[in-house]
């Protein structure tokens, strides 16, 4: 049942420090950016929080820049901002590929990278990209700044290492050590939630991350190890099937997801140049 929206409180901080102060209050409010996930939850009565913190107006959380050699994305960077950014195109083109496959343009204009991370869905389209890029999540609270490696950010299904008094301020992304690769498999090209979404880096130290095959997005270190040591692709495929934990759900079956992962691995690494 739809949540009655008139019963909800929206706190409107003017600055980031105002926002962080609101988060200190008991039963801290839920951060709200573009609303593309929260409003779906409200529509279906799945979003039970009653107080929200409006981040959308906070300029301090916007902007795409290079900082100390890292690509730095403000948490409010929208998918459209990513798609339009020459810097992202140069540094991390697979993030643009992922952004272009999120919903339609209307969603790309409103959905944010910080929101995709905070929402913690195992199917989040940008998450495998951030995992292979070994991104760093920068959190802010009144206590200051805390940096968490993206690959340590999720602690379980829809669970993160964030404290309730923290918000995501930015995402910092180092340069990739090889050729990037990305592929999303869904029901149709546009507007589909992924059945399997995979990002990889092909090079001396191969990296593989897959979404929608486990409670969180996962890196596949054992498969990466097989490929790094020059092992045959067949061995890497078998290792990958041991390493992922796909489930049957309304979008797909575990068996299908396993097959797709193997096929994606093959199409990515069949012509690997080391």
């Amino acid at each position, binding site marked *: 049942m739809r949540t009655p929206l008139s019963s909800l409180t929206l706190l409107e901080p003017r600055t980031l420090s105002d926002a962080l102060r609101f988060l200190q209050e008991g039963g801290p409010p839920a951060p709200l950016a573009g*609303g593309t996930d929260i*409003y*779906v939850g409200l529509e279906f009565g799945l979003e039970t929080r009653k107080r929200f913190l409006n981040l959308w107006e906070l300029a301090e959380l916007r902007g795409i820049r290079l900082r100390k050699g890292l690509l730095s994305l403000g948490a409010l960077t929208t998918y459209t901002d990513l798609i339009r950014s020459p810097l992202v195109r140069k540094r991390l083109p697979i993030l643009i590929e992922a952004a272009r496959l999120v919903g*339609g*343009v*209307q969603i790309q204009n409103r959905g944010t990278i910080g929101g995709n991370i905070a929402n913690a869905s195992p199917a989040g389209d940008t998450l495998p990209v951030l995992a292979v890029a070994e991104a760093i999540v920068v959190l802010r609270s009144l206590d200051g700044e805390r940096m968490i490696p993206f690959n340590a950010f999720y602690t379980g299904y829809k669970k993160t290492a964030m404290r309730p008094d923290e918000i995501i301020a930015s995402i910092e992304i180092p340069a990739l050590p090889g050729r990037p690769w990305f592929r999303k498999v869904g029901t149709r090209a546009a507007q589909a939630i992924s059945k399997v979404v995979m990002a990889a880096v092909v090079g001396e130290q191969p990296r593989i991350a897959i979404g929608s095959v486990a409670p969180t997005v996962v890196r596949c270190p054992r498969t990466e190890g097989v490929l790094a040591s020059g092992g045959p692709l067949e061995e890497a495929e078998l290792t990958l099937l041991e390493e992922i934990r796909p489930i049957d759900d309304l979008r797909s079956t575990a068996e299908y997801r396993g097959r797709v992962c193997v096929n994606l691995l093959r199409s990515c690494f069949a012509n690997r140049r080391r």
Partner: protein
Amino acid sequence: MRFTLNGKRVSVEAPPMKRLLDVLREDFGLTGTKEGCGEGECGACTVLVNGEALCSCLTPLSHVAGRKVTTIEGVRDPLQGRFVAEGGAQCGICTPGMILMSLALGKSPSLQTAREGLAGNLCRCTGYTAILRSVARKRKERS
């Protein structure tokens, strides 16, 4: 809460988390903006905010404060005539969203741009061919 609606400055008293869609339909009586799915899949509720298309079913009223909102009621564009001429509108539920999204794609987009740009707008009548014919520039115009 103040914003600009179809070129006019307006003020409304409504809860800040109320969906822009409901504010338009209930508080302003502008029922041209349609509700389809209520979850950002179908694009029927598309409006422009500062020229960018978004789903008004996923947007809190608060997020248009001080901004410019355009709904189908504020559109007078030759594109509407092309929807009529090409059969781009049938039952009409998707049409306002289709037109607003198309306007955000710029003047006479390529077929590819139109296809990708309208990926978030669903139509159950036309099979899309007539819509794309209405929106995308014709082959002969392409030179």
